[in-house]
């Protein structure tokens, strides 16, 4: 029952004007949101695999007591790189990467706001990641933990350049993350299809809006913290030096003021992968749309008020800690409300257990365990025992894999036909799912027990007489099974991309607008941009109420609408593809990397960065003429 206005039609003029230019220069100049997003997703997935391989070496080392496979030096680099990769190069950016592909499609837009900035953000991200891995391969990878607590990460106890690479990676990823947040907020607020009032915005788009705001409020905190660390290390300031009036606990406050919300930046977008998948495979709208939206917003606010629960073992005042216990427990309520709404949706739907649905439903086991162990960690007294033990390792993996990675894999299975035009193999998908599910639980459940038995985190070895050997061996076997599951996923992607069943525009008969575009979508997404009259436009009778007319095809023109009610406001022209974002990113990379070695790089690097930026923003005569003609004088 797809409405006529939503049927994808080809339009060669439109396709040409939104296409990326050909050739190698054209490849580097690409600004189409789908091209950039696809590269972004592949890059983040590459880092995910790299981080996973590091984890396998860790598990190999810990599989038996007194293991001599790797020494402390390499081990410390391994777990630092694993944590840094997964948090900064995979979990947060992959959510933004998926969003820059899907959000414009879901809101019925032809493009994304600030497309050149989008390309720039991607290049910066890629180069930051490459810098970190180059350092690691040269055996100067960071080794002070992904949290880099001073004074261990300070100039006295981490001489050399290792921690500088870590701190500079933070600069790269923050820059990229903040730019993407600005892009997504602007896109969601201003480029929605007419009629898509805030009350009709797909739940997934809501989560990306909330997440982007969280990025904007949380990232500056770690930016401040890591810049102060860099200046401590590079030019001899004393922010974290207690001997000179600095304070090492200041770092922990700033880092966790970012670090805890970061967990929710990772965890909130998958909540609405869940909502998309559950709605489609239950054949009904998610129960309780307002509850879901308010729960996400409440989670985002509360996420900023519980950072101290990472610091219960320090000597912050006792009564203050109780406040953070209460706040940490309270954040369980919105998540519980969402889970109950999904259960209600499932109970009243007509269920179809395809692979995306399996991944989504595993949330109800894995995240539930992770959430409940989180409530245990929120308690000051219990935390004193389990903090910095393997119990926390188990907890955080249950939350981040159960809450983010499993739904993300479900999302890949779900949107893969949209990305490539082909369905993923269902049999392989099921093997993939069950191997990952079993492997994950075998790997991480025993860690709860190891932690309670007193096994601390971040130890490269442990004595045989502690009796932790069996638990660790089981964990390592589980990790291997999990890895085989992920390998199957890669096989499935490679096979299905070539020879999967052709999907058509809407293989799942889903309800949101991205399924109204062709699979894969044409460069300009919608040849006839829709007007929306429902939360599930493709499901409701008259959900696509009409189409937008009057946007020219030979330029990258988009319709700008109002924030609340998506009332058409004006036409805007998005810029052409350009090589300058890439060159600017190169210049910024030179500045960032060189400033690890000399503070003067900030000075001459600025000179290097300026010309590409000037070229990037240099106005074109034709565009200026056109704008002058169009200008309405008051």
């Amino acid at each position, binding site marked *: 029952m797809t409405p006529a206005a939503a049927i994808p039609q080809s339009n060669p003029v439109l396709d040409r004007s939104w296409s990326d230019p050909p050739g190698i220069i054209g490849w580097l100049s690409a600004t189409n949101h789908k091209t950039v997003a696809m590269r972004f997703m592949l890059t983040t997935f590459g880092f995910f695999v790299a981080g996973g391989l590091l984890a396998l070496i860790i598990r190999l080392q810990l599989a038996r007591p007194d293991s001599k496979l790797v020494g402390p030096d390499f081990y410390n680099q391994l777990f630092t790189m694993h944590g840094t990769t997964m948090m900064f190069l995979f979990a947060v950016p992959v959510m933004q990467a998926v969003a820059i592909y899907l959000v414009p499609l879901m809101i019925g837009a032809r493009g994304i706001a600030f497309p050149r900035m989008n390309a720039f953000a991607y290049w910066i991200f890629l180069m930051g990641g490459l810098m970190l891995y180059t350092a690691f391969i040269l055996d100067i990878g960071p080794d002070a933990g992904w949290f880099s607590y001073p004074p261990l990460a300070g100039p006295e106890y981490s001489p050399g350049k290792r921690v500088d690479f870590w701190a500079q990676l933070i600069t790269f990823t923050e820059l990229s993350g903040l730019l993407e947040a600005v892009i997504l907020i602007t896109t969601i607020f201003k480029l929605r299809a007419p009629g898509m009032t805030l009350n009709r915005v797909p739940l997934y788009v809501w989560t990306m809006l909330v997440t982007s705001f969280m990025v904007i409020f949380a990232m500056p905190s770690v930016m401040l913290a890591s810049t102060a660390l860099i200046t401590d290390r590079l030019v001899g300031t004393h922010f974290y030096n207690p001997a000179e009036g600095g304070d090492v606990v200041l770092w922990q406050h700033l880092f966790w003021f970012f670090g805890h919300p970061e967990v929710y930046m990772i965890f909130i977008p998958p909540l609405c992968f869940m909502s998309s998948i559950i709605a489609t495979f239950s054949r009904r709208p998610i129960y309780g749309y307002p509850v879901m939206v308010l729960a996400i917003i409440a989670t985002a606010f509360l996420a900023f008020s519980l950072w101290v629960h990472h610091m219960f073992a320090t000597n912050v005042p006792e009564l203050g800690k109780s406040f953070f216990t209460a706040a940490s427990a309270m954040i369980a309520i919105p998540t519980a409300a969402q889970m109950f709404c999904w259960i209600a949706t499932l109970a009243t739907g007509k269920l179809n257990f395809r692979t995306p649905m399996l991944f989504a439903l595993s949330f109800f086991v894995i995240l539930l365990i992770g959430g409940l162990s989180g*409530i245990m960690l929120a308690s000051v007294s219990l935390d004193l025992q389990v903090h910095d033990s393997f119990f926390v390792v188990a907890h955080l993996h249950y939350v981040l894999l159960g809450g983010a990675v499993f739904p993300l894999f479900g999302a890949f299975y779900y949107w893969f036909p949209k990305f490539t035009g082909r369905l993923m193999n269902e049999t392989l998908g099921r093997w993939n799912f069950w191997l990952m599910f079993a492997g994950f639980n075998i790997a991480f459940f025993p860690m709860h027990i190891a932690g309670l038995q007193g096994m601390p985190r971040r130890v490269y070895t442990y004595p045989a*007489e502690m009796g932790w050997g069996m638990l660790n061996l089981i964990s390592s076997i589980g990790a291997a099974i999990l890895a085989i599951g992920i390998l199957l996923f890669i096989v499935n992607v490679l096979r299905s991309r070539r020879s999967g069943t052709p999907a058509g525009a809407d293989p799942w*008969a889903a309800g949101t607008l991205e399924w109204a575009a062709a699979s894969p979508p044409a460069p300009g997404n919608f040849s006839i941009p829709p007007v929306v009259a429902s939360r599930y436009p493709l499901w409701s009778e008259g959900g696509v109420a009409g189409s937008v007319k009057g946007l020219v095809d030979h330029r990258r023109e988009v319709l700008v609408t109002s924030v609340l009610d998506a009332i058409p406001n004006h036409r805007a022209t998005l810029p052409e593809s350009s090589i300058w974002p890439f060159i600017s990113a190169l210049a910024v990379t030179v500045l960032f990397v060189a400033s690890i070695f000399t503070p003067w790089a900030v000075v001459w690097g600025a000179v290097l960065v300026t010309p590409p930026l000037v070229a990037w923003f240099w106005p074109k005569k034709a565009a200026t003429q056109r704008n002058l003609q169009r200008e309405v004088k008051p």
Partner: protein
Amino acid sequence: MKLRATIAAAFLLGLCLCADAQQLPAHNALEPAGVQAAEIHQLWRLTLLICSAVFAAVLAAFLYAIWRAPHSAQQAPADVSSLAHPEPRLQRRITLAVLAAAALLLVLVLADFLTARRLAHLPLKDAVQIEVTGHMWWWGARYLDDDPSKLFDTANEVHVPVGRPVILQLSSADVIHSFWAPSLHGKKDLIPGRTALLQFRVDKPGLYRGQCAEFCGFEHALMAFTVIADAPAQYEAWLAAQRAPAPAPVSAQQQHGQAVFMRSTCAMCHAISGTDAGARLGPDLTHLASRSTLASGALPNNRQQLAAWILDPQRFKKGANMPATPLSSADLDALLSYLETLK
């Protein structure tokens, strides 16, 4: 799920068997030996009970929902009637479930608050005061006393009397460490530039192991300590022995050993009271021979291991601040003979 539960049960069974098989220093949050750890363990049991019940209830609701709802392998037409009509029955149930979750959370927060209060109100009359300093990668302990002549230093092994409260004054000489003896109490960070207090009481005599819990660099994994809970009389005897300076070397070999100690690198970092060695960079060795382990629990304290450790500490603990000390076998023998007198 059944599989997971079975696996978990098997683990727990295995653990019990392991725990009974060997007599080792206790190191387990689930086997408290002092009042503080016992309080936390009680809270753990309550929390585990409530969380397990919630897990079972939510999982049951979820399984019932997907079992009861109609299934189909094809994508049935979507039903959007819920967009127009409210679903009051679902709403009532969800509201009740959220309220129940909030009430249980309130119980847990209250229980936690009360436990934290009890932990903070350990009676401290007649407490033993010990200054514990974290170093990369060993623990210094100074037993405080109103009479300064009774102060003494030791390392990596802390003796405490059973039944008397202990106050540890925790600080760090370099980076952040964390003092954690899971059978006795939760952990507390040792933060440079600050002093933190940890109060506990051991109620059963015995050996309790602990380990640094905050990542502190290279040998974070090899930074263990032992708390030895003695009966009061034994403890007083130990105190008296520790307060005494090191005995003077008797035999010619021991005297030669002391001379080796004084002229090699040893004396630059280690102190032996009653001698000229007074450096504080490494552990105090006045009563080295009375300890059962070396290098913060990395090695057992016997003649061979001590010899190997002195010759090449990096073999056992890469990155340790102690340099290798090449000694002729005669010098080494003499040094070991001298060190063995430091009971």
